[in-house]
């Protein structure tokens, strides 16, 4: 593949001019004439029966238009569907009402909705709605929820177990029989709050004369939302238009279908007036999905030389009170499939028990299942190394899948497309000067300083994905991606993509793809996304899929356009098609580059469509619509290394150095790749050190504001050293793999490994996250280090 100046260049983002001048257009910026405002009444109880809802006082508040309770919307707005119904797991999908009818099951469960002339009036009235509850015992911990006598959330889900899922590959029994050493460890991968800075919200507008309903909403996948909101509200899919304008971060939380958005659509239709609803931050924390929340037990069989023979994992996954859109697939497929990581592990067994509890629904959050798998492996391999007296670098090198083994099918099932794990690993160690750091650490320990070095190697599954593969896991639709690339008569190009970037910069990188493929200036290309009224059905942006899948679709569409353009050019040049070359946007007969036809001239000819312009019988026009269904997933990989120092007096952890070497295949725009890695690293460090969604035993969320939920600021993190290796994906049209989640996946275990390493000489083998100062200080006090 020819590499031009534009593909691979650090092109400044085209999204930025509107965003740095305040002209970005987010959902809350949509204001329509006659617009009403909705506010939800949410349960203050984690588990309670609804005895009655009194709206009389609320109705009298000035500006209130109407109030609907769960009983009022029952039968009018259908329950929220679960779209990833995993097979062979005895899956139970309880009824998920958009507004609770008889029972509330978590703090924040919506009970009623108020509509008023102003947002302030709506909120006043929501507070004035009197709901009579009969509180019931609640359970928030997923292991306790399965125990005898635990509160039951549903009559038809015994022991609160929504599913039991198992994955097995290779001979696990044999691996443990042959083991020279077996390591066991309990691990907690705690719950997180995704925290897109823009909360969720929607504006709906219904036109009774046409029956059309238009929604602006904070969505990562407008077509999925259109499809499912159509099913829930009965608005026919072709009469429902979903526009996801600029979206202020998603991190998974805006993939899912929630009851609230469907209720807003219903209200607009009922009232024949536009209705807006925006969450406040507390509502976002209570009722938008949370992520992670695994209680894990892991066993590893190994030889004394460090070779890992097999791994066995049992996980209790907390799913929250209802099964959110993709909830069953995240802790199962996206977790279990990656339990071999970058290592030649010949046997794997994974059992996942999905449990319903009185907490907010849990679903895909940045990394989604893969950070949980990587964390297990990277922690256990460090624990094993320590047990064997090996260096954590040496044990990884011993177990890596070698570069010449690809494509490589792991015991867990997936076929890794390409990789060179050792190369990225060695580069990372070289950049952080690993040997020198170990020396520094030895000296520091003598002086009473607590320095730790943590390594984390990972491979992740993304580029979701081949439709037959994902359908076999029970996912509701295939995961192809669509595009229409339209060349206009002047040679300018509009690209309609089913991806919906919301920070990932594809308005720029996709234009780079088109500029490269068609040999035209990047300024001649526009990328249009996020509006179901304009683009073909698309699957949206999540799971690091947009560049490999939507980008792949665009490349293929450009190539089809070039095929047709070549025929037209050959006709104009009166040459055989096979003799026509294409270079830098121009067609010419091989050997005579001086007489050329630019693609812009071909475009005009394709629309003029007369004699001498296009071949007889050819269809006019120059555009292509492609639905690209990838043949495999993509598997980015890399190694991150962290150096941390613990303050022996306070237990505070400081990240001193951080090196990330990632391989996401070919890079379209290295500046954007680097930005994705930076952001991912900070989210991963945040889980390791600070962030934790905390419920008390009664199911109250203690971290329901940004004052309580510890998202790091610029003062909490250092600058990172990033580098990359390039191992193209052999099956992707562009050789790209995806990079949106790598940083988050790799950084959490790197930091935890570093902190445990800093404490290792004190006999500390493992500490559960988050490694906040109070927790470390207690350990240091026990060891007589801190005063």
């Amino acid at each position, binding site marked *: 593949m020819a590499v031009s100046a534009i593909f691979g260049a650090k092109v*400044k*983002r085209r*999204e*930025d*001019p*509107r*965003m*740095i*001048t*305040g*002209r*970005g*257009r*987010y959902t*809350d*910026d949509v*204001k329509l004439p006659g617009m009403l405002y909705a506010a939800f009444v949410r349960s203050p109880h984690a588990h309670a029966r609804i005895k009655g809802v009194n709206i009389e006082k609320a109705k009298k508040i*000035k*500006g209130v238009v109407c109030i609907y309770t769960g009983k009022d919307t029952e039968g009018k707005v259908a329950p929220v569907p679960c779209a990833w119904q995993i097979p062979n797991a005895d899956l139970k999908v309880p009824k998920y009402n958009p507004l609770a009818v008889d029972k509330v099951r978590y703090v924040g469960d919506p009970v009623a909705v108020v509509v008023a*002339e*102003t947002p*302030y009036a709506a909120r006043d009235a929501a507070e004035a709605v009197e709901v009579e509850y009969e509180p019931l015992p609640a359970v928030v911990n997923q292991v306790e929820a399965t125990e005898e006598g635990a509160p039951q959330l549903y009559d038809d889900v015994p022991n609160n177990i929504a599913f039991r899922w198992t994955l097995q590959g290779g001979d696990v029994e044999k691996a443990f029989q042959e083991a020279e050493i077996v390591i066991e460890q309990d691990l907690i991968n705690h719950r997180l709050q995704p*925290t*897109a*800075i*823009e*909360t969720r919200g929607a504006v709906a507008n219904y036109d009774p004369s046409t029956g059309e309903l238009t929604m602006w909403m904070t969505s990562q996948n407008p077509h999925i939302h259109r499809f499912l909101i159509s099913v829930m509200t009965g608005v026919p899919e072709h009469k429902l238009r979903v526009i996801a304008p*600029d*979206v*202020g*971060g998603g*991190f998974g939380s805006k993939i899912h279908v929630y009851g609230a958005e469907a209720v807003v659509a219903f209200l607009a239709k009922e009232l024949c007036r536009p209705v807006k609803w925006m969450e*406040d*931050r507390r509502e976002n924390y209570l009722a938008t999905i949370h992520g992670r929340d695994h209680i894990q037990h892991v066993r590893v069989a190994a030889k004394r030389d460090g070779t890992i023979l097999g791994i066995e994992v049992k996980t209790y996954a907390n799913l929250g009170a209802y099964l959110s859109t993709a909830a069953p697939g995240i802790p199962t497929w996206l977790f279990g499939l990656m339990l071999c990581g970058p290592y030649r592990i010949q046997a794997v067994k994974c059992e996942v028990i999905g449990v319903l509890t009185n907490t907010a629904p849990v679903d895909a959050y940045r990394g989604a299942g893969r950070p949980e798998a990587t964390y297990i492996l990277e922690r256990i391999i460090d624990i094993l190394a320590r047990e064997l007296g090996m260096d954590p670098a040496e044990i990884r090198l011993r177990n890596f899948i070698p570069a010449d083994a690809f494509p490589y099918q792991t015991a867990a099932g997936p076929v890794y497309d390409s990789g060179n794990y050792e190369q990225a690993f060695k580069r990372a160690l070289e950049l952080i000067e690993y040997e020198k750091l170990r020396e520094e650490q030895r000296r520091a320990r003598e002086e009473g300083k607590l320095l730790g070095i943590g390594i984390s190697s990972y491979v992740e599954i993304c580029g979701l994905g081949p439709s037959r593969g994902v359908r076999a896991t029970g996912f509701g639709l295939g995961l192809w991606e669509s595009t229409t690339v339209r060349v206009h008569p002047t040679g300018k190009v509009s690209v309609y993509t089913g991806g919906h970037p*919301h*920070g*990932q*910069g594809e308005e720029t990188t996709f234009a780079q793809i088109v500029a490269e493929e068609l040999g035209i200036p990047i300024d001649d290309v526009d990328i249009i996304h996020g509006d179901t009224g304009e683009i073909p059905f698309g699957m949206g942006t999540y799971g690091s899929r947009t560049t490999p899948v939507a980008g792949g679709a665009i490349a293929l569409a450009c190539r089809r356009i070039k095929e047709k353009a070549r025929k037209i050019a050959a006709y104009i040049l009166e040459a055989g098609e096979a003799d026509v070359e294409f270079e830098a946007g121009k067609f010419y007969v091989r050997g005579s580059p001086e007489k050329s036809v630019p693609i812009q001239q071909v475009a005009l000819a394709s629309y003029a469509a007369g004699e001498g312009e296009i071949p007889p019988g050819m269809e006019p026009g120059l555009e292509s619509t492609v639905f690209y269904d990838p043949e495999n997933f993509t598997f980015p990989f890399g190694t991150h290394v962290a150096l941390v120092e613990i303050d022996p007096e306070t237990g505070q952890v400081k990240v001193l150095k951080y090196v990330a070497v990632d391989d996401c295949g070919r890079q379209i725009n290295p*500046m*954007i790749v*680097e*930005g994705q*890695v*930076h*952001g991912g*690293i*900070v*989210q991963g460090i945040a889980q390791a050190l600070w962030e934790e969604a905390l419920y008390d035993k009664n199911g109250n969320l203690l971290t329901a*504001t*940004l*004052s309580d939920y510890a*998202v790091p*600021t*610029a*003062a*909490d*993190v250092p*600058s*990172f050293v990033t580098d990359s290796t390039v191992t193209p994906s052999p099956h992707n049209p562009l050789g790209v793999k995806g990079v949106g989640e790598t*940083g988050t996946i790799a950084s959490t275990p790197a930091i935890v490994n570093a902190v445990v390493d800093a404490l290792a000489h004190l006999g500390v083998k493992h500490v559960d996250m988050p490694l906040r100062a109070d927790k470390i200080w207690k350990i240091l006090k026990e060891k007589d280090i801190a005063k």
Partner: protein
Amino acid sequence: MARKKQLLETAETYVSVSMKVNGVPCSAKIEPRTLLVHFLRDVLGLTGTHWGCDTGNCGACTVIMNGKSVKSCNIFAVQADGAEIITIEGLAKDGQLHPIQEAFWENHGLQCGFCTPGFIMQAYWLLQQNPNPTEEEVRRGISGNICRCTGYQNIVKAILTAAEKMKR
């Protein structure tokens, strides 16, 4: 009729505020509890100022009020009566981006863009206070703003670059 009466009753509780926003005098009758961020966004239609948390933690609503950076979700519009306000919309002059805006663009200092206006306004104030900040000072100076996308590295780089640009 009932609705008209209701609206009239509401109007009685309104108060007048006047302020200069991006050099333009403006006044309106508002509910006394109207937050400055809502006044800017909903009354004046200046939607470049965002809100993200209600508790003064995220800084997406940062604007300049009488020369100081403030979080406009923690201020009532009536407290800004008579004030001079600068929002993100007021930074570029005659179609020319402010050096801070340029630096954010050149250094990939934004991704989803939602927190960006707040960061740029905070940087604007920070560089007025300290035209020669170190990386450490920049990191501390923007620690009242939260970005979930960038990991801050390129924001810090952008502000350091802007400081250089503004010296020229």
